[in-house]
């Protein structure tokens, strides 16, 4: 038996724009009240609660701000292989997003390391259109 939840919800002008961007292979954040670029974007400023609407495209490479190691579990990225969780600040963004970094061991992780997006070939407008991040080639 399949238990279904027969409702759909719209993701709205901000989250929706972000997810649509992912489908196109583009990453967008949003300008906060203080001019910082929030990525992932929020509909309302996390400090002032003002409604936000100025979407900004950010880069597809960025920097690890903190990370933790995992042996990999069901449902998580990378199909049960070990990987690092990381908060990643994309170039042009002022806040960090959570995702997986595909490296073989914790020795290859460090705060400040450069990473880039590895896209899925088939994308549908979902956070997992980003398969994971990987170390940026040529970066030290």
């Amino acid at each position: 038996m399949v238990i279904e939840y027969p409702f759909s919800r719209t993701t709205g002008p901000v989250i929706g724009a972000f997810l649509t961007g992912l489908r196109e292979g583009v990453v967008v954040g949003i300008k906060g009240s203080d001019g910082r670029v929030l990525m992932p974007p929020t509909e309302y400023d996390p400090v002032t609660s003002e409604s936000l609407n100025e979407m900004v495209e950010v880069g597809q490479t960025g920097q690890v701000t903190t990370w933790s190691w995992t042996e990999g579990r069901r449902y998580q990225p990378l199909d049960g292989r070990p990987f690092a969780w990381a908060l990643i600040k994309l170039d042009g963004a002022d806040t960090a997003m959570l995702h997986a970094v595909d490296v073989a061991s914790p020795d290859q992780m460090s705060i400040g390391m450069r990473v880039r997006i590895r896209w899925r070939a088939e994308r549908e407008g979902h956070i997992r259109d980003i398969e994971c991040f990987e170390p940026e080639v040529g970066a030290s």
Partner: protein
Amino acid sequence: MRDVAIISFAQTKHARAITDANEVEMLMPVVREALDGAGVGMDRVGFTCSGSTDYLSGQAFSFVMTLDAVGPWPPIAESHVEMDGAWALYEAWVKLQMGEVDVALVYAYGKSSPGDVTEVLTRQLDPYFLAPLWPDTISLAGLQTRALLETGRVREADLAEVAARSRRDALSNPYALLARDDSPDALLAEPFIAEPMHKWDCPPITDGAAAVVIAAGDVARELSSRPAWVRGIDHRIESQGLGLRDLTTSASTRLAGEKAGVASAPVDFAELHAPFTAQELILRESLGLGDDVAINPSGGALAANPVMAAGLIRLGEAAARITRGEGNRAVAHATSGPLLQQNLVCVLEGE
């Protein structure tokens, strides 16, 4: 404002898995003990409020069934929060402020043993950016722990000290689950379970329940020889985006602490709901609690962490200690959501 006090507290002997009692059976003796401790029956309770989560029991409106633990007939005035029981206590405190009832019963429970709580709690995360990645609680706590270590304000040995002290203090708490005398050095020698996390950075998976009776003004004085008065209580929340806040501090705890009046007089001891070692250090800093304040004399959530009850237990433990005369001014804290997203601070005092 009406003076309101915690006048009675009871909890289960917490266990890794309570398999011989369902939620109702687990709650019944605890509710009975809390009511007996206050010397009241349900006929004097004007409001009942509970905290629990359907995501642990695996079915919708599960709290309705656990009302059997208090007996909903004759009809009672009742409410529930899908949050830690500390927020149920807050709702009951507001109810007493309205002046229509004088006594309230608050209870909370959680059985983590039937499933994988570190996975279940991914369901509380932001549904677009976080929950679809299924980041388990230990992995998330690792992000916060490493960020704190990176500031240089805290060393790994400080984290081990928190774990060792919590387990040692729990030796004098008959309800705690993880009570033992480990040296910080021995803990540091243990391997990572998920770098930077050691097993001892994490709380034990726990089944348990707790109940509290609160009462207003002269009713509290009538029912308790030494009520633990709520002198301030406040709760604040931050963004659901983990990268949108500074994980190495707790702005919401700081604000709640200011509103609750933590700093207006010296604090004898604090019960902080910190399920992970780094979180205790973050909370102490955010509440301005110095080294002279005894932290978690009960052993805290690192010694027993029944999800949805562990925050209420901090308020109950602090109040019981004041009622026993083992201190006169305490800070009790509860947290909810990922990585200290939402925080409640309560200042309790003896007369």
